[in-house]
């Protein structure tokens, strides 16, 4: 007896929805096993991980704050991945956006600032991220360099640049030699939405971006172009679409969104630039994009789910003394299961008897 995979003629809609849910289910099963092996009561651990973050206002706000960058970045990555452009460097574009926008805050610190500053920082962040993302795009279309490698390697460039800036030219002179910039002044900070929490304007911005992207993908010719280039490149050429120009477009959009997420994080949550600005949002967003089926609304749902694991991981660290790496393991397992379950969309699994000679 052996298992074979048989190509499906058509993928039922129910299965498209069921596949990411199955992946989440398998991740939870793995979580139970891991918790049990680590000597914890799995049910209590699951409760701490996945229920507690959603059970009070503070937790919900934290989830929204964490989900915002994940959703922003993943929506852009989804465009790239749909069109077969493998941008793995959102983490670097995120940091570049934070630096470009943060530069405005640092440069004007102590000088007269106006209400123009915050929108200008957002714009600078988006432009910074977009320009940084265009490097792998141009390298791909001009010299055929693999964008997976170049975009990934540029993450380290951005990380080291930030590290140098906050230890060198941008270091806070009053900061006791800590590697960080000055704390941004009030007009350079993302406005808060509620008293007594950290929920800020970034979250509605992310929701707006999701709505705009959903329309772009579902209702415009550009969205169709992205889909067609990814599905069937030759058919896209037959439709008269330029693969090259599209590569630049999707990299620029996803870089801009990652950069926007970066400056929102720097000016909203952290309120300064420092080396540990991102807990790996740019990489986690890759998981979000796939879990969300490369669909903007899907990315929103998946982003919230992944944010829960971040908060749950922090809870578990405090209450169960579990290392934060366990959260990384879950996120990795989740991506693994999402991709594995996608096989079920294209293939049917069948058990057959051995072929007789």
């Amino acid at each position, binding site marked *: 007896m052996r298992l074979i995979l048989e*190509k499906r*003629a*058509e993928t039922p809609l129910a299965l498209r929805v069921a596949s990411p849910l199955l992946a989440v289910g398998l991740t939870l099963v793995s979580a139970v096993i891991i918790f049990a092996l680590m000597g914890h009561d799995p049910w209590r651990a699951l409760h701490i991980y996945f229920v507690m973050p959603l059970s009070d206002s503070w937790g919900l706000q934290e989830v929204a704050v964490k989900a915002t960058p994940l959703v922003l970045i993943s929506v852009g990555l989804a465009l790239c991945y749909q069109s077969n452009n493998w941008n793995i460097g959102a983490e670097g574009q995120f940091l570049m956006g934070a630096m470009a926008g943060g530069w405005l805050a640092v440069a004007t610190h102590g000088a007269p600032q106006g209400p123009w500053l915050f929108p200008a920082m957002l714009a600078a962040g988006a432009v910074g991220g977009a320009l940084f993302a265009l490097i792998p795009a141009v390298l791909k279309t001009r010299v055929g360099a693999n964008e997976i490698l170049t975009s990934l390697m540029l993450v380290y460039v951005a990380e080291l640049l930030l590290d140098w800036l906050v230890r060198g030219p941008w270091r806070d002179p009053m900061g006791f030699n800590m590697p960080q910039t000055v704390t941004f002044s009030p007009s350079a900070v993302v406005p808060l939405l509620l008293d007594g929490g950290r929920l800020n304007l970034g979250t509605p911005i992310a929701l707006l971006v999701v709505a705009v992207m959903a329309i772009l993908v579902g*209702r*415009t*010719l*550009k969205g*169709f172009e992205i*889909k*067609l280039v990814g*599905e*069937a490149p*030759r*058919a*896209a*050429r*037959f*439709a*008269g679409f330029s693969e090259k120009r599209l590569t630049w477009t999707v990299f620029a959009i996803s870089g801009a969104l990652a950069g926007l997420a970066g400056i929102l994080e720097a000016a909203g949550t952290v309120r300064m630039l420092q080396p540990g600005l991102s807990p790996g949002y740019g990489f986690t967003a890759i998981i979000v994009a796939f879990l969300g089926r490369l669909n903007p609304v899907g990315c929103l749902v998946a982003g919230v789910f992944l944010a829960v694991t971040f908060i749950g991981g922090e809870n578990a660290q405090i209450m169960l003394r579990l290392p934060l790496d366990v959260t990384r393991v879950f996120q990795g397992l989740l991506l693994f299961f999402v991709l594995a379950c996608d096989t079920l969309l294209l293939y049917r699994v069948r058990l057959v008897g051995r*072929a007789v*000679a």
Partner: protein
Amino acid sequence: MDIADTQPIPLVAAERIVKRFGALTANDHVDLAVMPGEVHALLGENGAGKSTLVKMLYGLLQPDEGRILWQGRPVTLVGPRAARALGIGMVFQHFSLFEALTVAENVALALDGAGKLDDVAARLAEVSRAYGLPLDPKREVWQLSVGERQRIEIVRCLMQDPKLLILDEPTSVLTPQEAEGLFATLERIRAEGRAVLYISHKLEEVRRICEAATVLRHGKVVARCDPRAETAASLAAMMVGTEIGQVRHDAAEPTGPVRLSIRGLSLPPPEAHGVALRDISLDLHGGEILGIAGVAGNGQGELFAALSGETLAPREEQVTIDGAAVGRRGINARRKRGAAFVPEERLGHAAAPRLALSENALAAGHATNGFVRGGFLDRGRMLGWVDAVTQRFDVRKGPRDPEARALSGGNLQKFVVGREILREPGVLVVAQPTWGVDAGAAQLIRQALVDLARGGAAVLVISQDLDELLEIADRIAVIFHGRLSAPLPVRGLTRERLGLLMGGA
């Protein structure tokens, strides 16, 4: 060697082999027998099922039905390793070599139980000398010509001491001189009592070196013959088929205005294995169907891309549509001038397999059909278009707007042809309009092309199906090695004459 005994047991035999890919039957009860010491040709057009068959003989695919016999015994080839263990070696059309490694390293990597590198290099040198395939084991692959790379693959196979060597279109990548060298090597291999299964659609070559041939068409064996006793024309006829259709059409000399014209178009090959277009000139008149015949791989795909604008001409005036120069304009500019195109490959080129029909209508019609307003899609219009094509061209499908891959070949072909004809184009360029579709769909499509031309449009049909061209075309030109012959009126044109032109005479 035990294969030298005189019993008439085939070295390898395929019996009633069936292989299906989804709705397509790539091999339909195929029988093949290769005798020891024989150079056996497997002939057929692209898509006839040759590669599928040999992949099963080499263990890369498993047959759905039927069985494979090795020296009279049924065998199951679970993979290439099992095939090699029996004594089957295969040289693929596209090589699998590591450019940065040396010849010896490449051979050692692929050899089952290779042993030490020095031993491999020594054996390699010995084998390459014995077969007249000079190779330096220490050279790195990136420095080698295509012919030399093929030698590596052949030597690699010979070092396994195979009883059967399968060569997949070996000369398609070789210069004529390199091909001569290969033929001499094949002579030696045959003289040692080894059998060769030689896949090709180059007829002269097959007549010269093969003593038996099996001809495939649409996945079925249509003929077995001794190619030395045939002519290139008769072999071509076997390959492309001789069924008779019943489309109503009277061939006529062109009288309408020139609607599409090409002047002195030369283009380099788009990729390593592509064909260069050489000095192509052509006038296509309104009201006529001009057929372009030719054996596969003589530049048909490249010509289609140059006409559609997927490849741009060097100069603007080299391609004109209704008098307007469009050589440097892309496919949508040409569509706006009234041209329409149907590529040869249905899935992947004409249509995106996993997108709905309405989206496939959008792909070809977004510049001309009013599907897009202010950047936004008008899904109602797209669906309306699908309905109109469905009704007029009798496209049979389950749901109203299924994915393209859910349609049968014939119905999808009716859709991609109908999608263009419904626009009432002034110029229609269509490649292989009825390839692999059922007789009913083929008849409908051909009639639609004839009716379109009768309405004043200029229609260019690139096809390898001679019967189709003789049935619907007014004039036929032949493409050979990227050159286009002068068009000949169909009246008084014989299959033999065309066969000679297709063979390059």
